[in-house]
């Protein structure tokens, strides 16, 4: 069964086409990641799916409920973890969960049980009576996620939930997502961290400039770039002059550069590297660092867009 069906979704802000006719399906029980740089349209997409924005056109179905026609039923299936922490800092964690649980329609013993379950899940049971305002950023993130889990939703939207937190909290969150998924929850996850998308996702859609430029499993996406290696080379001069020279080296598929750092896709790094060094030496350019990576999603993005995810 399809948990989420999105068809030809479009959204324009003033003169900016934030989402340009994207379509995708998510099967129930999957973790689906929208991967792309800032400004790719991920948050706009998730905001439309959360009913916070009205699309200019297109349709969305959540658990079979049309988002436009059966909004309330669709929302009841949905838990949303916003990108920014959206909690009441002058309330305790327990009070926050109690309030949000009521907003999701939970009452009485069921609400109490769910609060307890969630507090244990996010690892804050022992500090539940402290005001959220006194929590660290990571703890707030965990409560932020906990709120979305109170009503045990069938679908969970997570909009870059690990931005700006410590490694320990990030690991806790990623493990929690896997656990929830194992329990049958469908997760739509947006991130610009390639590693997170690789670790979590059953399906990945790569977004850029409001479009989905590639979609599939991790293996399927990597096939796009074949077995190419990704090389990150740092030089002691501006990248623009040597980038054109390196572009012409046989075996170099794509190249991009920023501030003396160049990203290259090459069929075989062992074959191209000597030639790159040779050109650099002739042009009096010193190579200061080299990093060689096996094919990954970053390479896919570079291959498809000509730029790195972090650009």
């Amino acid at each position, binding site marked *: 069964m399809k948990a989420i069906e999105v068809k030809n979704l479009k959204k324009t802000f003033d003169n900016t086409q934030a989402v340009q006719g994207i379509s995708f399906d998510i099967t129930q029980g999957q973790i689906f990641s929208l991967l792309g740089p800032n400004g790719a349209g991920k948050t706009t997409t998730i905001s439309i799916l*959360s*009913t*916070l924005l009205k699309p200019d056109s297109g349709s969305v179905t959540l658990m079979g409920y049309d988002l436009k026609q059966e909004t*309330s*039923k669709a*929302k*009841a299936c*949905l838990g*949303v973890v*916003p990108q*920014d*922490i*959206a*909690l*009441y800092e*002058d*309330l305790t964690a327990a*009070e926050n969960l109690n*309030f*949000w649980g*009521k*907003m*999701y*329609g939970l009452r009485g013993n069921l609400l109490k049980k769910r609060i307890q379950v969630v507090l244990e899940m996010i690892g804050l049971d022992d500090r539940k009576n402290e005001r959220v305002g006194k929590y660290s950023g990571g703890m707030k993130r965990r409560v932020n996620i906990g*709120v979305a889990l109170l009503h045990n939703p069938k679908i969970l939207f997570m909009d870059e939930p690990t931005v700006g937190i410590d490694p320990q909290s990030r690991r806790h969150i990623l493990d929690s997502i896997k656990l929830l998924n194992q329990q049958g929850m469908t997760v739509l996850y947006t991130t610009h961290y390639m590693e997170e998308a690789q670790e979590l996702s059953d399906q990945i859609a790569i977004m850029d400039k409001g479009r989905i430029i590639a979609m599939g499993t991790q293996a399927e996406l990597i096939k796009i770039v074949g077995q190419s290696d990704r090389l990150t080379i740092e030089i002691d001069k501006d990248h623009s002059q040597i980038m054109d020279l390196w572009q012409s080296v046989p075996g170099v598929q794509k190249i991009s550069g920023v501030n003396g750092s160049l990203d290259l896709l090459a069929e075989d790094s062992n074959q191209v590297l000597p030639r790159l060094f040779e050109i650099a030496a002739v042009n009096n350019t010193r190579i200061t660092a080299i990093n060689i990576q096996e094919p990954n999603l970053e390479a896919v993005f570079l291959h498809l867009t000509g730029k790195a995810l972090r650009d």
Partner: protein
Amino acid sequence: MKIFDIVIKDLTSSFRSLFLLIFMFGIPLLVTGMFTLMFGGNPTEPEITVPQIRVILVNMDMGDPNFQNRMDQQSGLPITSLGNLIEKTLFTEETAQYYNVDNKSDYASAQTEVNNGTADVAIYFPSDLSTTFTMPGENNVIEIYYTAENAGKVYGLQSALSSIVDELSIRRIAVDTALADTSEVADQNSTVQNIVQEVSSFPTTKRDFLVDVRTLDEPQQSSLILSMLAPIMGGMMIFFAFFTGTTTAQSILREAESGTLSRLFTTPTSHRTILTGKFLSVLFTVLIQVSVLIVVSHYLFNINWGTPLHVLIAIIAIVVPAAAFGIFVNTLVKNTKQSGAIFGGLLTVTGMIGMMEIFTGGNSSATLSKVSLLVPQGWSIHTLNLSMSAETTTALVLPLVISLLWSIVFFVIGIPRFSKRFI
């Protein structure tokens, strides 16, 4: 149900804000308290403790046969002389807490005691007081003796004594005049009989003026302070009720900026329910503030706000427009960064206009009073003043209705603007 969940959440947040608590309760009470201290009053203790005055009464009045058959109407004891009558009128069971009366027969030694400070005052009734009183054309003197330093202390007693004597004198003059006009052949005996009859009818139970004299200064000062405190407290309460309405309504903007409002919109709770809950939380916050201030100021400053029904009407006339005003002014700004200057300006200007009567010490002209009614605060104050001045309930209806009309105008403009922005 969800509406009240939102209300309770907002109330919890509001009452955990020290800043808001200080402005809601602290400052109105503090300002009023400062005025109390400035004017040296303690309105919680309106009964003044008066030190007991030590009186030596030297009643040498031998009386007159005409007084023998007269009885004190209250005690049933015989009134044997004019001195006896004055004594019974001046010193009663009720005034015993103020006067410690010691009867003596030697006026000289009484004066010595006053000089030595063992007594505060000595009063002397001469032996022929009754006799001379019943003889037309005769005069006599009652002496009261005290030192200069006790002048203030015995002022009340002297006034009371003078009042009694003055009234008795007036009665005698009245009888003398009446007899002279009606019968030139009236014999002396009938004159005496008439004077004594008239004097004996002097009510020894008429003691209210004694209390008035004793408490002549202090209660007046106390009521003066109260008459100032009530409008000041009322003005502070209304000013800060409107401040609270504006500040708590600002929580809608704060929630929009912090993302919690957006998050609420992702829950299966309608936008109307959420905004209604937010509006009601503003109303309840102001309601609690005004109710608490009314009760606390009543007990703290002894302010009588009026009958319970009148106070209820006044509370409605304050709370509803304050909440509506708060919601309205929040629709005029895009975000909380803009709100400081705009709210400050609006609240100050409308507050000053509305409270013109208070700021001018109640001496504002009719024009100024009318100007104050150009803003909702003016009508709230007007209703509260009517409640305090014990006007009829009907008198409060018009200002209440106008206050509610102001509220309707604010709601009619404000709610659609918020709804347009968030729904």
